[in-house]
């Protein structure tokens, strides 16, 4: 071998090496350049410059702020009179007549002062609103006849106030206020998910954790016949603001869709996969037909199947489960038939040589071989289908996906949105973990091919 060195002059070798490195250099430059060029194309195709203009960072701020805080509406009804305090302005978040938020202080008949943040405060007196910002002064909005009048210290309208003769909006740093002929309203943001545990009408509202534990322990009953603990659970479970019961049901429905869909698909795909495997079905035409069916049901996304199935089955988790089942029958069919094509013939032949019947041959020659592949695929899909079920639910099925998309579309309850997102993430992580545990247990632990 060393002999050839003498025949190939070293300069030739050097030139060769230069060319080699040069070629690699070219590829090294070309690949990132191609990617870069593609990104440049996308930059314009996706209209990124326009996007930057359109991006509403204030929306992002609202989203973030709302996800960890809540707002309380302090409303004066200008037509019928009367002051109302309600969390998120919702009827079910309304303070009973004898209760008021601690940042609201009565300053007279039909008049309150609302402490806002950043040193700002607002006063409502009848239909008149006075909004005070420490660095600016006090703005007064009052209703005169059919007109809404805005008075500012310097007579100009600053950019944080939107004013017309029929409506005035004030967006301060520590709160918001709006006046129309119908009502005068102040909005105050506070930290936390208010009413998450109990709504205002529950006797347990506003109690600290230790008080609640004490109540749960104590014998004297607050609510009728129920024990305190049962009453607490009941009030929490039926919380009309956060609707924990419905949310839990929705999560459960989502997992149910994933479970039924995945398992159903596996049960259907297994026998069909034999028809699609070269070594079990000699007939080319059958194989081809079955494979194309697999391709078809797999190629159409589960979501589209949901739409197609919604006519026959209507909205609900069953429709979602069937849609997942259809898609996954395709995926499983393809994967199982590939696993079947890779089985070791020796084992089958061993079983066959004893005079075993065909079904027994499959049971002992084939199934034990493909079980690990099968199980691990099925469990992997179970986890990933929890996510698909969320998406499918968003369109027709129901479940947590529907709650989430609706909450996002109405763009109102971002704290609920973040609650749902958290639950979804926890749900998927849980399914991921559970399927991992099962996979390890079933595949390594068991000695039998069940």
């Amino acid at each position, binding site marked *: 071998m060393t002999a050839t060195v003498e025949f190939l002059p070293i300069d030739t070798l050097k030139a060769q090496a230069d060319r080699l490195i040069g070629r690699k250099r070219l590829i090294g430059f070309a690949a990132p350049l191609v990617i870069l060029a593609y990104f440049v194309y996308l930059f314009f195709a996706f209209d990124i410059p326009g996007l930057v203009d359109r991006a*509403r960072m204030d929306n992002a701020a609202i989203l973030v702020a709302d996800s960890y805080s809540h707002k309380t509406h302090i409303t004066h009804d200008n037509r019928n009179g009367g002051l109302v305090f309600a969390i998120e302005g919702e009827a079910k978040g309304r303070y009973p007549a004898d209760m008021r938020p601690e940042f609201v202080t009565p300053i007279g008949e039909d008049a309150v002062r609302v402490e806002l943040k950043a040193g700002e405060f607002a006063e409502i007196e009848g239909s008149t609103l006075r909004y005070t910002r420490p660095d600016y002064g006090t703005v007064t909005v009052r209703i005169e006849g059919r007109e809404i009048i805005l008075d500012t210290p310097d007579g100009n309208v600053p950019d944080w106030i939107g004013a017309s003769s029929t409506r005035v909006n004030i967006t301060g740093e520590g709160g918001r206020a709006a006046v129309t002929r119908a009502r005068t309203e102040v909005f105050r943001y506070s930290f936390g998910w208010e009413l998450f545990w109990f709504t205002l009408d529950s006797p347990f509202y506003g109690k600290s954790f230790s008080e609640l534990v004490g109540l749960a322990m104590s014998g004297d009953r607050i609510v009728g016949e129920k024990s305190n603990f049962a009453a607490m659970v009941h009030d929490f479970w039926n919380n009309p603001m956060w609707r924990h019961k419905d949310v839990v049901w929705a999560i459960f429905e989502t997992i149910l869709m994933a479970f039924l869909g995945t398992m159903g698909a596996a049960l259907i795909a297994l026998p069909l996969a034999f028809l699609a495997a070269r070594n079990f079905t000699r007939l080319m035409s059958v194989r081809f037909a079955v494979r194309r069916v697999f391709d078809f049901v797999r190629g159409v996304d589960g979501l589209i199947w949901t739409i197609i199935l919604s006519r026959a089955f209507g909205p609900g988790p069953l429709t979602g489960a069937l849609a997942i089942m259809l898609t996954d029958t395709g995926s499983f069919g393809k994967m199982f038939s590939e696993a079947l094509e890779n089985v070791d013939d020796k084992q089958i032949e061993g079983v066959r040589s004893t005079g075993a019947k065909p079904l027994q041959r499959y049971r002992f020659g084939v199934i034990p071989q493909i079980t690990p592949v099968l199980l691990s695929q099925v469990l992997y899909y179970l986890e990933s289908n929890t996510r698909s079920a*969320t998406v499918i639910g968003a369109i027709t099925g129901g479940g947590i996906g529907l709650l989430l*998309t609706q909450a996002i579309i109405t763009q109102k309850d971002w704290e609920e949105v973040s609650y749902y997102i958290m639950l979804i993430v926890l749900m998927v992580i849980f399914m991921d973990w559970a399927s991992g545990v099962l996979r390890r247990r079933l595949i390594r632990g068991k000695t039998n091919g069940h």
Partner: protein
Amino acid sequence: MTDVTLGHSIGGQRSAEIQQAYMAMARTKRMYGGIMLIIFIALMTSGFMLADSRNAGGFWNGILNVFQFPGEVISEASEKVALIPALMVKFFPSLIETINIAAASTLVGGLLAVALSLLSTRGLARFPALIGVFRRLMDIMRAIPEIVIALVLIFVLGGGPVPAMIAIAFHTTGALGKLFSEVNENASQKPLEGLESTGASWSQRMLLGVIPQVAPNWLSYALLRFEINIRASAILGFVGSGGIGYDLKNAFSWGQGRYDEVAAIFILLFLTIVFFDQLSSHFRNKLVTGA
């Protein structure tokens, strides 16, 4: 191993013991097997019944009507079959947008996944103490369904392809990152050590020692993901992220009178998925067997 030579069987008594022990084991196993089977069947049937009762329509009534809707679509589409090619051309730009979303998100997600996977593989990590952090990060990225991110981003950025792209890329990062780090774990440490001994920096070691080893497997996973992302980007069109899914949803939604559009989009989408499926399985075979 003590191979008892033939003839030295352990004798009747031991044999009986073994029989006992085995029978006991077989019984437990049978019992466990039986219990698992019963649990599984119970879960399936009760799950089915529950889903059936919470659904608007029942399974047994519905199953008779499954072909009603597809039937309507197909009959209208076949009446207007002549229009379909033109419609396919009309929707082609949307298809390109969908494919672009998928390609861009696979690329971006893939590149991020490379970095995250290297940072979270034992033996390779730049900051071994942070492995757990990066892994959880990937778990969370994987766990959030695309649609969630897309919807939130649509709120901030407005509709269009970018929210979908970011949403899918985000999810892809988590999904591919996990797969990549599994691949990395099987990479041989030897070339790495060789490079380290020359005084190569971490990024050089990864670039020259790890990537050449794992690139084919990475690529194979990325191609698989690309396919999945095409579907995902079509789906995100349903919630207002543009692309072919948007057209499909509107046509589907309007219903009768536009089923020819449904058919055209369907054909386009299906052909695309089959095309990329074939293309990527071709490349994957080549990469894994060849190279």
